[in-house]
């Protein structure tokens, strides 16, 4: 008996290691991924997802709230006030968020670029997928380099233990961005349909490339690239400016070039939140946080005929909506923000809820291309097809304001800059524009001065040191080779 037992124990013991092998059945591991074309598609979808979170919240704290376009109201939490009043430091979370989400985008794109070429699959699909990865990687680096300047550069997948990397000079980063976008522009489709709608197009790559050139003040290439897009006839301004923000025609409208797609129905729990944050508190129909208001100085740049002004970018109390609901709100001391309210969307009007909105985040639209073209040509780039004035006036007349003519180069420059501000409030453009124009410090100073008169209690300590944001402190704590930007 005893021997039998011992023997049994021995047999059991011998099979023990296999007893402990419990390969997961409910999660994938890298060993069994990147094998098929559907894996390649899924890996590219993963890159878009990183971009989705990257533009969900923290991004526009930096690109818009931290500008002279928006003032945080008393409803906003302390983080919003610090960003709005430019009293934040390197520990503020949106910087860390953008940094992490951008590098997640880059790493996922790098994994695709490293591994998808080895998959046996339809070459056309592979080419397109690699083009998308190039576009998304370039787009992430472009945001990083504009916000932070020199940043670590990775062209291939990184080891999780690769902790201490140094910053790469921004010129090298831009070189990769340009080559990525050039590759994307030649490999991506001009448009998509059905279940591919919303993927990066060749036009998106070109438009982004134009913006890269514009940012580098490479006026010749900027004018040429923007001119090519205009000449392609692929895009047209919508007759009605507000229709850009109609949920039903997002992506498919003629003006849209590239958007980050938020869809609260198909992707519940990850709907957009910028609508809720910006609508006046108590606006009928669900969540409306009223975290911000429009400063009088911004209100004043819209003429009375400008469709982008009252009932466009902002609203004043009492407001009667298309459902004849009258909303009275108190949002001292400026008008409430209204731009993203789509009064034709049931979801926008009656079922607003946290992460329950489908409003997209627009990265590029045709009006931007026209204004980039106007700016580049005015600064010395060669015109092709239309004049800078025509491009600018197309945007102006669509908005219902008078065309300009015969302006000096300096006056035209001011006019384009003013137009960009009117056109793109809270569309992720203002901070970058101010930064590349070298006007950030002045704009923040003006804003804090205005703010002190509007809300005397607010703390506004310092302006913008230079035209860069601080490298996130959390990153510098973990990576001792990361230097900080001057002034932070």
């Amino acid at each position: 008996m005893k021997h039998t037992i011992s023997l049994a124990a021995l047999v059991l013991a011998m099979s023990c290691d296999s007893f402990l092998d419990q390969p997961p059945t409910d999660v994938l591991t890298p060993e069994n991924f990147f094998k098929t074309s559907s894996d390649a598609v899924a890996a590219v979808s993963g890159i878009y997802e990183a971009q989705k979170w990257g533009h969900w919240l923290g991004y526009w704290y930096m690109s818009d709230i931290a500008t002279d376009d928006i003032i945080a109201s008393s409803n906003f939490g302390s983080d919003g006030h610090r960003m709005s009043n430019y009293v934040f430091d390197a520990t503020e979370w949106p910087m860390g968020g953008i940094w992490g989400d951008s590098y997640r985008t880059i790493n996922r794109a790098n994994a695709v670029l490293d591994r998808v070429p080895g998959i046996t699959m339809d070459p056309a699909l592979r080419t397109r997928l690699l083009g998308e990865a190039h576009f998304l990687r370039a787009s992430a680096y472009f945001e990083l380099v504009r916000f932070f300047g020199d940043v670590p550069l990775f062209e291939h997948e990184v080891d999780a233990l690769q902790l201490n990397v140094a910053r790469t000079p921004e010129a090298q980063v831009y070189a990769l961005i340009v080559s990525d976008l050039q590759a994307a522009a030649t490999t991506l489709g001009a448009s998509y349909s059905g279940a591919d709608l919303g993927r990066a197009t060749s036009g998106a790559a070109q438009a982004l490339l134009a913006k890269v050139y514009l940012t580098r003040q490479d006026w010749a290439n900027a004018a040429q690239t923007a001119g090519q897009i205009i000449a392609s006839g692929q895009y047209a301004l919508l007759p009605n400016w507000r229709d850009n923000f109609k949920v039903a025609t997002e992506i498919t409208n003629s003006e849209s070039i590239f958007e980050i797609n938020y869809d609260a129905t198909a992707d519940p729990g990850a709907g957009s939140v910028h609508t809720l944050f910006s609508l006046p508190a108590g606006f009928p129909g669900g969540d409306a946080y009223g975290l911000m208001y429009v400063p009088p100085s911004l209100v004043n740049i819209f003429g009375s005929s400008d469709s982008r002004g009252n009932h466009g970018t902002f609203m004043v109390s009492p407001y009667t909506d298309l459902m004849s609901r009258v909303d009275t709100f108190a949002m001292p001391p400026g008008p409430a923000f209204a731009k993203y309210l789509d009064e034709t969307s049931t979801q926008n009007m009656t079922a607003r809820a946290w992460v329950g909105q489908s409003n997209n985040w627009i990265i590029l639209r045709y009006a931007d291309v026209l204004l980039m073209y106007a700016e580049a040509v005015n600064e010395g780039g060669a015109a092709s097809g239309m004049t800078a004035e025509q491009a600018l006036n197309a945007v102006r007349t669509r908005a219902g304001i008078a065309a300009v003519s015969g302006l000096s180069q300096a006056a035209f420059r001011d006019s384009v800059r003013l137009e960009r501000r009117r056109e793109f409030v809270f569309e992720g453009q203002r901070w970058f524009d101010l930064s590349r124009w070298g006007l950030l410090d002045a704009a923040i100073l003006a804003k804090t001065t205005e703010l002190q008169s509007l809300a005397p209690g607010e703390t506004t300590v310092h302006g913008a040191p230079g035209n860069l944001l601080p490298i996130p402190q959390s990153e510098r704590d973990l990576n001792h080779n990361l230097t900080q930007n001057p002034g932070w």
Partner: protein
Amino acid sequence: MRVRAWKWAGAVMLAAAGALQAQEPGQGVALAAAGPRFLTPAEPGSNEVGSRWSDASNAAVLRQQISVDLKDVRLGDALAEIARKAGLRLTYSAAVVPLDVPVTLSAANLTVGAVLSAVLYDAGVDVLLTSRGRAALVKRGSLGDLQLGAIVGRVTDSLSGQGVAVATVTVVGAGLAARTGDDGAYRIANVPPGTHTVRATRIGYTSATRSVTVVVDQDSTVDFTLTPQATQLEEVVAIGYGTTERRDLTGAVSSVSADQISSAPVPSLDQALLGTAPGVQVVTASGQPGAVAMVRIRGGNSIYARNDPLYVIDGVPVTTNLDEATTGSLLSQSVRGINPVAAVNPEDIESIDVLKDASASAIYGARGGNGVVLITTKRGRAGHNAVSFGSYYGVQEVRHRLPVLDATQFAQMVNTAYANVGQPPPYSPADIAAFGAGTDWQDAIFRTAAMRSYDMSISGGDDRTSYYVSGSLLQDDGVVIGTGMNRGSFRLNFDRTVSHRFRFGNRLTVSRSKGQVLPNAGLGQEVPSVVLNAVMAPPTLPVRTAGGEYFSGDDILTGRPFPNPVASALEITNEERQYRTIGNVFAEYDLRDGLTLRSSFGLDYLTSLQDFYSPSTTLPGRNFNGQGSRGEAQTTSWVNENTLHFNRRFADRYSVDLIGGLTFQRTNSAPISGTANDFLTDRLRQNGLSTGKVFQSIYTAEPRSSLLSYFARANWGISDKYLFTLTGRIDGSSKFGAGHRYGFFPSGALAWRASEEDFVKRLGVFDDLKLRVSYGRTGNQDIGNYNALATLYSTVYVFGGARAVGFAPGNPANPDLKWETTDQLDIGADATFLKNRVTIVTDYYNKKTHDLLYYTPLPGTTGFFSSLRNIGSVRNRGFELSISTVNLTGTLGWESSLNIGWNRNKVLNLGPDSLIIGLGGVGAGAVQDPTVLKVGEPVNSFYGWVYAGMQGGEPVYRDLDGDGAFSPGDRTIIGNAQPDYTGGLTNRVTYHNFELYVFLQWSVGNKIYNINRSRLTTAAGNANQLQDVVTGGRGIRAPKIGNSFDGFESDLFIEDGTYLRGKNLRVSYSLPATWLRAVHFQKLSTLQLYVSAQNFFTRTDYSGYDPEISEYAGSNLAQGFDFGTYPQPRQITFGFTAGF
């Protein structure tokens, strides 16, 4: 005080029933009339004058021990077998002895005399021993006038002098016994003349032995004085894979008896640990019926891994990890459903033993690091068939209400707030005049709630089989409307002896629990959080509209739909059902005497079903036109354990107890949940998810893990004086990285029973004194299933309106991932003195946990957020003291038991970090997250600004970093949730049939971060506030109404959580048996009536509902938070228990 498990030498089960059974007092003393007498011819000149025969039951031949295993054999064969084993030449005649009568007897190591008594019971014969070792069976009476005497006397308590009832007095070797009556008197008749040894025993007393000479036709008087035994040294203690007597214990083990467990109506057994064992901290999460409790044995070790002890119920390790057992479908901050430990009916529990030091818990190796709670359920006793029935009814209510503003005060506060920011007041004087007191929302959600319990058990057995069957029903209506819990449970414990070498049995409980869980989704203007919303709801709003529907229109102050707390509580389904089966089957085989092979197969099967539905009329469903979900998780854990146990005493000095084993355990879980929105009708609720227009999510997973272990333990005793224990366990776990598949967890302990030394005995101080020291290593393998592996996680993006599921790297590989390691030193002493009236157990411990799992943040440039690594280290050290005393004995009896535990916790190392802020994940809408981990400070410290008073109606904070501004650098440690010490004091007073039981319990020095208060003092003019906001309360001198001061984490909201609580007061009365008979309740053997009160008083400075609180009970890093927490009720209970 705990009853010693009754052990005969060897397993004795006598078929010829009654031979050794004691007589019931008052029913005659004819016990041995039917049994054989053992006689020998009287020797001439002996002092047994006047008799030809003398008693021979003490003869050497009859005292030798034999083992027999007879089943339904002829008496003749049985006698032959006994004679052969005893070396006894036995002669008898078939005419005298009924040789064909079948007998059954299985006995190990029983005396020949007892065996013969058993088989010859009722045979009408006597055994005549001759001087030459022969024995003859002769017909009773054939020896002529056999004359007998009797022994009478009284058993008294040495301290009180009072009689001791129900003591057993036995005539050693003669098979004669009697029990004492109420006055301690006894009488044993038919005692053969001669010199006898008489022994008196009584549970709770040391036994006494006297010698007496019985003379024919005379009553020989033998009085006994028994010394009460306060000490627990006789107690049998479960130690994991076996038991030991407390006197032989080398480790630190605290025990809770069935008495203590059943003294208060607790729905869950972990609550029974509260205040009963030093070093065991229990904080019930909330007053939610069936709520989980936070249990920490000697402080928390881990940061990321779980800190809960391992629960082992009858040898089956049970899952308490809600991560795998729930699907997260419920709407609650942190209490994800009801407590899985609540599946066990507390009435079924015989004892709970808490293994605290490394010597005790190392037998559980990689799971022993947080201590081990061993739960032993009741089993039947041979020959003691009993039916017990009990029931109670309790009434509960919350202790007090928060003093918030009434409608008039509220409207004035709001107007002031608006005025202060230059806005027109929303309420006109006429409005205010019309409001009056308005709605008392706390009144609207709190109620007086009932708690009912019924339990019944039937237990008993015969010589070979014992059983314990029970069933129970519990219904606990929560004090918040719409909440409650009920449980039905069933148990069958069965033991069978097949032969004197082979035994098998099972332990099984099946239960169903159902809980309606308080919706508490944190704080947001449209979030259903019943308690929080009730205190913050404008009293100007009605519960219902004039039309009778719940008011859920817009709150004019927020401009948004009002989250009506009454509607949230009653209209939202937030319900969990748990079906749990815990049990095992086991078999034991004695390979030879003292060497036993045991194999068991255990199962813990838990199905948890979680339903949520919020109708289209109530938030949050209102935003989705109805929202519902159902989640189910089936968790199966099976364990196979095989042990070889050797136990022997050598040369009367050395005792050896060895055990070795091999166990396999596998845990699988299969959760599934689905959520849908937008329903045509609310009537189908969560049962009609397929009718939703929007399928929001479906979730499935299958986490799995395996554990393979080898273990051994050696106990070695020398002269009962020096005791050594060596324990080791090797655990292999599928959770560990490839490089660390197996961990080794050794421990050693040494105990010295100094009281056995002559020089200590000469002191005459100690009745018992034992000094213990142990050192060892245990682990914590509860580190998640696949954390060592590189895994991908799934992503969602939408192209063209369709979900595009993607995959992206989620977790970087860590092949070095392994268990957390705890090294612990324990030095303890157990002392009993003052004639066993005082017992002191004290322990000092120092444990350091290293290789702590910690999510090390990775630079964002890696593309990952963090990596789980073994880097941190935490120390817990402390001191424990328990004192048990017998203050009075006799008619007025009084026993006390005090225990106190001091624990000091300190974070020693966090790898690359020294300060991590806001890790606790304090819930939605809290605005504040003052949790922190800081090297050199305790876990569960709070971090924030130091309040420095009001300036211009707004709080200002101390400028600690001297930068002249309010800045993050001004934050510091502002308190911590860990108590300086906790304790409990039990007093039990008995007087005749009355018993009074008083249990006080306290926690001193712990801080509570009162988020409720922070939200109730913002004075923003959009929600109801504490009256302090208007009148200037603690810390808030003159708030500027309308300032909405953003709720910075500060010591403004830290309160002292110290409390002293009357946890339980119970008065019971046992009806005398004479009364029961007088009213013709002969069947009823006992009837006890009681009334008890729980939380009957509370002394605390804490301003919230209740200081016994821990909203995030499941979290290691966020203890001591009050945030919309369901308050603990106080309760009064009436009940009875009856035995048949």
